[in-house]
Each structure stands twice: as C-alpha cells, then as structure tokens.
C-alpha cells in the first residue's frame, strides 16, 4: 500500500499550507435523476465514487476504471460519459442521469423491456452502461439506423451476450 501512505503524507502537507483547505474539498450542487443534490466531495473523487459510495446508487458499475469498458457510463448534460474519467468536483450545476433513472413509477424503460425481451442480458455487468449509452442515443436521435446504434455502443464491452441481441434490443426499443 505505498501509494496510500504517500497520499496521506501529501494530505497532511496540504493542511499545513495555509488557505488550501477549500481547494481539497468542495461543496457541489447538481441534479441527479431529476432531483437536486448537494454534497461535499474530495478533489480527487471520481463521479463513479460519488454515485456509488457517497450517494449509494450502485447501479452504475466499475469495470476497468480507465475508460476502456463503458460499464460506468452515465448521461452528463445529455451526453454519455464514462463516470470513471470524470472528477466529481466538475459536475457542479450539471444534470446527471444514471441507470436508476430508467425505472419510473414502477415501470421499466422501453429499453429495459426490450433488453429483457430480446435476451440481451446474461451476467448483466455491462447492462447499466449499455442502457445509458443507448438512452443517450435515443434522447438525441429517436430513430437511429443500425449503424448509428453500433457507433453509440462501440465504447461498451460485453463479454457474455454478443452484440447482436443488444443491437436488436435497442432497435426494438426505438421502434416502440
């Protein structure tokens, strides 16, 4: 655990330096799944940590932690982003949607229905990220072509299902 030690030493150093404390933590406000949120974040906290650990929304999954797999995808101001590459402190004033936003008033989103119907889920670890990439696409372009669907989910890896059923599910949701 050398890295942890190194960080805690640095941490002390900053507190000794005058006036920098406000820059290590910051109070931010944003909208999460339609509700206003106000929370204190550490400067190096990522959006995925804020969502899962601080706010308890565990639908968003962490896979690689470096932008490669897409399982941590959420919608930030209308755009799909990997929440492992976003610092929590930067989402001040933003509008964020996570997979939890899809289940509304006791009903699944048409995308979720279509994933179930087409059997586009096996272990399900990639599913929240895929759903949010697909949701971002449909919000912007309600009638995408197959090619546009493929591009929209090109940053989401699935190790079990194979992509064909996933494409079909998104097509089906778009048709409805």
């Amino acid at each position, binding site marked *: 655990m050398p890295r942890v030690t190194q960080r805690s030493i640095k941490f002390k150093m900053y507190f000794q330096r005058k006036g920098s404390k406000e820059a290590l933590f910051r109070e931010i406000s944003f909208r999460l799944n339609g509700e206003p949120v106000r929370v204190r974040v550490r*400067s190096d906290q990522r959006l995925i940590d804020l969502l899962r650990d601080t706010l308890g929304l565990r639908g968003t999954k962490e896979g690689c932690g470096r*932008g490669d797999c897409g399982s941590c995808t959420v919608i930030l101001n209308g755009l799909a982003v990997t929440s492992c*590459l976003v*610092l929590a402190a930067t989402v*001040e004033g933003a509008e964020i949607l996570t997979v939890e936003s899809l289940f509304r008033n006791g009903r699944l989103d048409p995308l979720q229905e279509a994933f179930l119907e087409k059997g586009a889920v096996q272990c399900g670890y990639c599913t929240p990220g895929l759903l949010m*990439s697909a949701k971002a696409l449909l919000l912007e372009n309600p009638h995408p072509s197959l090619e546009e669907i493929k591009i929209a989910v*090109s940053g989401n890896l699935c190790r079990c299902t194979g992509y064909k059923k996933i494409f079909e599910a998104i097509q089906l949701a778009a048709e409805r």
Partner: protein
Amino acid sequence: MFEFYQPSSLSELLHLLEEGIPDTCLLAGGTDLLVEYRSGARNISRLIRLAHLSELQDLKCEDGRIKLGAALTYRTVERSSLLREKVPFLVQAAQSIGSPQVRNLGTIGGNLVTASPAADLAPPLLVLEAQLTLKKKSSSREIPLSSFFMGPKRTLLDPQEVVTEISFALPPENCYQIFYKLGQRNAMAISIASLAALGQAQRGFLTGIKIAVGSVAPTPLRLFHTEGLLQGERLTQALLKEANRRAQEEISPISDIRGSVEYRREIVGVLLERALSEIAGEVL
C-alpha cells in the same frame, strides 16, 4: 489528493499557473490525465480545470483561417458543419478516436499536449500546417505544430503556459484530403499506424503534396523529405518505390503490443501508396 480549481476566466487560470506551484496540472477532458494519475504515473498537487472556459471554445473561419479553441471536444469537431465541409479528414480523424464517451469528454488541446505518437488529430493538423497559440500571464506566442512535439509525452509547452487556440489556413478547394488509421479493430483502437495527406494532381503532376504519419516515430511526424521528392512529378511505379524508400528513412517505428517494427514499416508503404494513387488518380 490535490487542490482543485475551476477558474471563472482564462486570466484567472493564467494567474493560478503563474504561482508556479510544483506539479500543477491543467485538466481538460481528463481522458488521459485521470488515467495517468490513478496509475500512479503522475503527481498532481494543484489541478486547474479549463474545459468549461468559454474563451477556449471558439470554432470559426476568419480571413481564410479556421480557428479552433483548445477546449473543443472531439464531439464538437465531429458535428461542426463548417469542419465537415472544409476539412472532412480532420472530422474523420476525430470520429476515429476511442468511444463516444471519450469523444464527449476529450479535447483537441488535450490530444496535442498529451504528445502521444498515436494522437489521431496530429497527422491532419500537421499537414494543415496548424499554428498553436500558447499563452501565459505576461506573454503569448505562436508556434507551428511541427515544432511543438519534442518526444513521447514531451512538448515545447512551459509549465506556466496553456494552449488556447489551434488555427490553420483553409486547404485549397480541389485538394484531396486523406486520413487513414490502421487499428486492431474498428472501435476503441489506438492506431498501429496512421497517415494524413493533402495534395492534388494537375494534368498528372502532383502539387501541394503534404504527408504526415502517426505511431511510427517518437512523435507524430511530417514527411518533408518524401514530399520534396514527389512535388511536381508524375506518379509512376518507380517514383512510388522511391517515395516509400524515402519515407522509410524518415520514420523510426518501435515494436509494441500493437505491432512490430517490420509490420509498421510495411504498413506505412501501403498507406503511402494508397494515398498517392488516390491523389494522382492512377499510377503510370
């Protein structure tokens, strides 16, 4: 942990940089920086965000030059009708990067300052002879992109400087614009080799030929000597062979997980031939 600042203007950002705290870093899209920081490869004591600054979001054509703010995301580049019309190969390069999620975050400035040999926007911007505007609190300078890269992850940028703008003259109307990227698959692939070219053939003679390559040298590279050989000539089989030989002297690829030296050399020859035949229309 580090100090985090989100300045409200460029001058506030320049002021924070000027304080000269060691290990100060600028944060644009974070797609490179945050990965490095978490892997332990990068110390950060003060992080200053620039992605949100309106001064760095320009996208306009003025007096025959296109001016791009350094914080424009790949997504904005991809969707700009001006860029689609005037420099489709730059748009193509932006579309080839990572995933939609990465393109929604990553910026042009970040792509260049990262100074990866594989930075996909570099070859097209090199053949467009792009100029970078670098600013610090007390001064500002313009330098050509071709002298900006010093080595892998090294640039001419001072620690107290920020890249504010990337600009280039519109390429001639009837000029071919070519961007090829060879990766291991279509999506989410870092290039094994890439090539951008500009040029045209007038009555069979090549003119205005400019060529740059990526991932086959310590930095993205303009092939000045190869261009010199081709300028004003007819494209024959013999000239193609000679051009490839010249290009092989200019590049210095390495072997890595994506490809070997031999494969990269071979591929540069293939991409070069493809680009030149497209520009010339036929090989005599």
